[in-house]
């Protein structure tokens, strides 16, 4: 079974078997879930396409709860009612945390469930820099928000609905709101291997130079001792082969 199909099956099964199961420690904090659902509702109003997210967590580690976290353009915590939507696209995720005794690793999958003729694809999501593994990391909440938030944009790009125009902020940013510390050097992020290559090259040159100096020193110190000994005896010359001379 393919990975998207497994994620889809996992999510559907969880929704059927655990209709009221919500996560004790949700991936999205409530304000984030409200904002995402509102953005999706706005997109639905503009595009006549319903959107949602459904993430199934199977936690065998004992540290958290298993369950389904869902939301949609109908509201946070409200799974998308596909029967009431002529067109829809839903991000589905499956996260599996294994127990410490288990040999298998934690794993995550994503899929997109849609009835559109040209639905968004996981490959498109991945081209934007996100992957299923982000659901296991520190930015699992932002991954859910961004991967779901990308759906209306991808639907518009496929020609299935109009674009939602970018509206520039016209009001000044409140004085209390400031950007946080930047992400660090762009050069180091992209070319981190260059300093390592440089160091390796410099180290290699240094090693060869030191080795050359040491061997030259050893060579010069052994020179006089060799010359002080008896001269090498000349090699006895081999007499010509009489047979060779006969055949010539």
């Amino acid at each position, binding site marked *: 079974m393919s990975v998207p199909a497994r994620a889809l099956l996992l999510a559907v099964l969880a929704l059927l078997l655990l209709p009221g199961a919500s996560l004790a420690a949700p991936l999205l904090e409530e304000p984030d879930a409200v904002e995402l659902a509102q953005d999706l509702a*706005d997109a639905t109003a503009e595009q006549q396409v319903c959107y949602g997210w459904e993430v199934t967590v199977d936690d065998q580690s004992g540290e958290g709860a298993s369950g389904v976290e869902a939301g949609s353009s109908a509201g946070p915590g409200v799974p998308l009612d596909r029967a009431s939507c002529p067109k829809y696209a839903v991000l589905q995720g499956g996260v599996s945390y294994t127990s410490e005794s288990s040999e298998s690793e934690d794993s995550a999958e994503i899929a997109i469930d849609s009835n559109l003729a040209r639905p968004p694809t996981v490959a498109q999501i991945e081209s934007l820099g996100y992957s299923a593994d982000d659901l296991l990391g520190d930015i699992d909440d932002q991954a859910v928000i961004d991967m779901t*938030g990308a759906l209306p*944009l991808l639907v518009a790009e496929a020609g299935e609905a109009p674009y939602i125009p*970018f509206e520039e*902020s016209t009001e000044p940013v409140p004085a209390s709101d*400031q*950007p946080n510390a930047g*992400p660090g050097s*762009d050069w180091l992020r992209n070319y981190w291997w260059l300093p390592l290559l440089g160091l390796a*090259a410099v180290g290699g040159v240094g090693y060869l130079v030191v080795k050359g100096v040491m061997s030259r020193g050893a060579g010069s110190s052994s020179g006089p001792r060799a010359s002080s000994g008896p001269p090498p005896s000349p090699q006895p010359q081999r007499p010509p082969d009489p047979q060779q001379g006969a055949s010539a």
Partner: protein
Amino acid sequence: MTLPRRAKALRLALLACLLALSAGGCASASVRDSVASNYKFEREERGRDGRSLVYSSPRPPTRTAAEIGGRLSPGERRVTQSGVFLRYARDYVGVVPDGRGGSRIFVDDERRGYGHFYPFIGGYWGSYSGRGESFRGGGPGTRK
């Protein structure tokens, strides 16, 4: 190691040294340069907090953003229904639909970018006091 072999190794190491130094010098980490050399410059927009350089791409926003991020990896990124936003050390890049199937690319410095893209990046790349609204639902006239 014999002398000719050692000389060859020394030459190779020196070559690697030169290569690393020249690559380090040539490797540009400026998203401004990267965008300027790959997309058509349209105009300069001046706002309250500074200026944006605006470029155009014939390709849609997600593809254009993937191209930009592929050439120079951003430190942070946001994907929203209205566009893709990339954060670099000193610059913010917003890739949004142009309404004709292509993209408009904004290249802002940090001060201008935070205000310009505030509804999309506020709370992610800095503090944000605009949250806390309750869910209003969809329907006509509900756009923010």
